[in-house]
């Protein structure tokens, strides 16, 4: 618990400094919120058990967004592969380290001279704290990402840039029809995530995204869960900090957690530092 509090304090300090630095940039007369876009995400989350304490995190997301003709899933936006090795320190804390390879798709009619897709690379590490509060679970997630992105043209302006992302998410899972999260339980999962960014290219737009998401899920068994929910998000335009993008996203999630170890290795169940 001590470690968890210390990590949280560090994060808040970092976020505070970033906010202060943002406030020191040239003031603009008035910020502007753009019309919200609509999007549809299908997200699969794999946690493949490798040993008592190690997991292979394998996530694949298909992110669609509106086109001129169709809302929500008019065109593909990104295909996103996130992998990591996760170490389960205790029931209350785990840490993960891995990479992301994402494909960003150019939107609408691709202008001449622009690419259809460009890749994006990240190294990421995550620190997840879980708290048991009566019948519900409360989670604090700190995720740090080191990110290389580029634009769709071959011009100098669209060349590779490097940024850091500083993410903090607080979320809950509240069982509805069972006393605790268990097979057969429906649950509600409210989440709020603040994503800040830094880097040479980040001049007046440290607030990359603020995501408010609530999902409604069903636990089929300890190895399979489905959920769906609606997310509102908003964040500053990288080039012009005064502009705020907004988005409404319908998200569908599948969580799978297979354990291919031989039966004898699964038993006895380790309850991890109770």
């Amino acid at each position, binding site marked *: 618990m001590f470690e968890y509090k210390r990590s949280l304090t560090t994060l808040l300090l970092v976020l505070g400094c970033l906010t202060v630095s943002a406030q020191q940039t040239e003031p603009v007369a008035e910020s502007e919120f753009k019309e919200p876009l609509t999007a549809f995400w299908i997200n*699969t989350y794999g946690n493949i058990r490798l040993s008592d304490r190690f997991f292979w995190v394998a996530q694949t997301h298909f992110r*669609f967004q509106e086109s001129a003709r169709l809302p929500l899933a008019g065109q*593909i936006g990104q295909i996103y*592969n996130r992998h990591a090795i996760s170490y389960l320190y205790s*029931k209350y804390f785990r840490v993960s380290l891995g990479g992301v390879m994402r494909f960003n798709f150019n939107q609408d009619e691709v202008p001449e001279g622009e690419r259809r897709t460009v890749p994006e690379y990240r190294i990421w590490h995550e620190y997840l704290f879980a708290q048991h509060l009566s019948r519900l679970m409360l989670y604090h997630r700190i995720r740090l990402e080191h990110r290389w992105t580029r634009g769709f043209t071959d011009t100098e302006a669209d060349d590779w840039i490097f940024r850091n992302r500083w993410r903090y998410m607080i979320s809950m*899972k509240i069982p509805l029809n069972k006393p605790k999260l268990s097979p057969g339980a429906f649950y509600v999962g409210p989440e709020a995530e603040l994503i800040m960014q830094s880097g040479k290219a980040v001049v007046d737009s440290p607030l990359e995204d603020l995501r408010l998401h609530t999902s409604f899920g069903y*636990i089929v068994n*300890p190895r399979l869960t489905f959920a769906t929910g609606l997310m509102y998000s908003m964040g500053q335009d990288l080039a012009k900090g005064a502009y705020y993008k907004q988005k409404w996203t319908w998200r569908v999630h599948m969580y799978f*957690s297979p354990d291919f170890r031989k039966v004898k290795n699964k038993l006895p169940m380790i309850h*991890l530092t109770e």
Partner: protein
Amino acid sequence: MKIAIRIGVLCLLIALDPISLAGQQRDSSTFSGSYTLGEFAGAATYNYQLRRRDTVRQGPFTFRGANARALLTGTDRPFTFTGQYVDDGPVGPWTFEFGMYGLGGPVALRDGYYRVAVDGIRHQATGRLLDGEPDSLWTQTIHRVVASDTAEVLLRSAINFTAGVARQSFRLESGATVLLGRVQRDGVAEDAWTVYTDLETAQQWTFDDGQLLHIVNEPETRGDTVAVLPLLSGKTELVDLDARYLDWLSIQLALQGEERALDGNPVIELLTTNAEAYARTFAAIRALGGEAGRPLFRVRLPVDPLTRREVAQLTSIDADLRAVDTISQALLDNTALSVVQNADPEVAYLRAAVIALRDSLLEPVRTLRNTYEREVLPYVSRPAYLGYLWSGGVEDGEILVTYPDAAGRQSRTFAGPGAGRFAIGEEGLPAVEALTKYVLASVDSIRVALGQKSNTRERRQAVTALEEQLTREYYLLDSLLESHIGVLPEQFGLESVQRLVKAEFQRYAATKDVLEKGEAAQQLIRCVEDLDALALQLIRLPGQLEEVRAAYTDEVWNNFTATVMEEVVKKRLYRAYEDRLIPYYLDRVREGLTCDTAGALQSALESLHRRMLALRTAETDALESRLRKVEKPTEILELLTASEPQ
């Protein structure tokens, strides 16, 4: 959009690929150790593969069993089965060896080992199996063994099979006697079956499409013919050539006045020994997972199915016979009466009457009942058979009883209530039914008469002692029930146990006759003991339910929720136990509990608990998939016990 979804599915398939690879892994291993199949227990060596979680035998297989302790204390039945499996089915050449040995000759101790010789019989069977059924030529050889050496040959049998059915010609041999015969494609007896003794034709059985027409003794010299059946024109039925058929044959010949025609008949002996040899072999093949179970040879019989009325009459005769046996046994076993009859000639007379009624008057009724129970009656002409059993056609209810008294032996006529003449020849089965009822009424009247005579002081003392024991047992049960009723939920049925025990006590209290009271007290003591065991079992049941639940619940870490989740494993099996079997037994406790069912319910609940705990660690994939198709508790229980190692 469609393209995007296809890309998504492709990515997902790539991501899930390790799952399919892991699912295809198969282990091939060798088992060597203790092994049990049905009634056979011993040690086996075989190869197997694990598919999903089922053990699939594959390749050479050897299974042997011998029990030295059984040999030393009486008889051992060792066995050796050798052959091979493909996909868990026995196929190809197989060899079966069975023994039945007792100690024979002297025992010697050499180099620290005891050496004993055995006497008995050795039975070897060899042949090929196809799809688990006998196929091609099968041979059976039975030797008598004396001092561990094979002596004479009791049977040599060679029969051709196709897909489990006997075909073409066969040969059965014992000593100097050889039986050659043939069957049609479907195993139906055909043409002449000839017995040779020392190469001379000794007997010939002639079949026509399964129907035995006649038996000719020494056809080459005497030509003594026994006609069995004329060519049948009415309704016929194909039946197995088994012990039942041979029963029928002896009745049929007896009806024709040829009662002794089958005495020492070599065909009967050969067929019987051969049928026993195949029964043993087929039982082993079935235990190994094969299908063998079809009859060897089949024959045709005239059939006149029993009418509903006849079945009702025969059922009533059977019930009355049982009642007569119960009452007469109680009267004859009663030691107090044995003492009294020395001093009281009336008691001696009545007991002798019981014996006479039971043995002489009912003798033919018993024969009739046995013929019915062995399912031979539909193939026999009833009027002719009754005429054979009661040759005069009439039975007199009055019988002459001879009994001992102080002066020597006396004779008196006994006539029970409603004594008369029973015209069986004219009236048939109804008259037999009336005769049986008359005997029952007579024996019951004797019971009442003897009961009044035995209300002696000794009897009363014996009953008082039993009642004291009964009171103690009842007090224990009652205090057990009182301390748990209201605590244990009503569904567990302790109230039913209490209701039953009270009702049984009231019934007992209403019994006045001392003779009956003694018997009733003993029955009630047994009942109270059974109910006590059942009540204890019911009190233990919540704990056992929890034990099974805990055994069938795994704690699984869910990395997404960061919680440990309880998950029921072998769900279908556990649900069958919790939702079907336990309610089924508790229903039986709450409704219709009797003294006769209490003991069985207690042991059923106890063994179900043990079975469930054993199944938790056993391979149950096949059992669970079979459970999917059954709903009825009785069928579920059959599946659970069928998979139980014997």
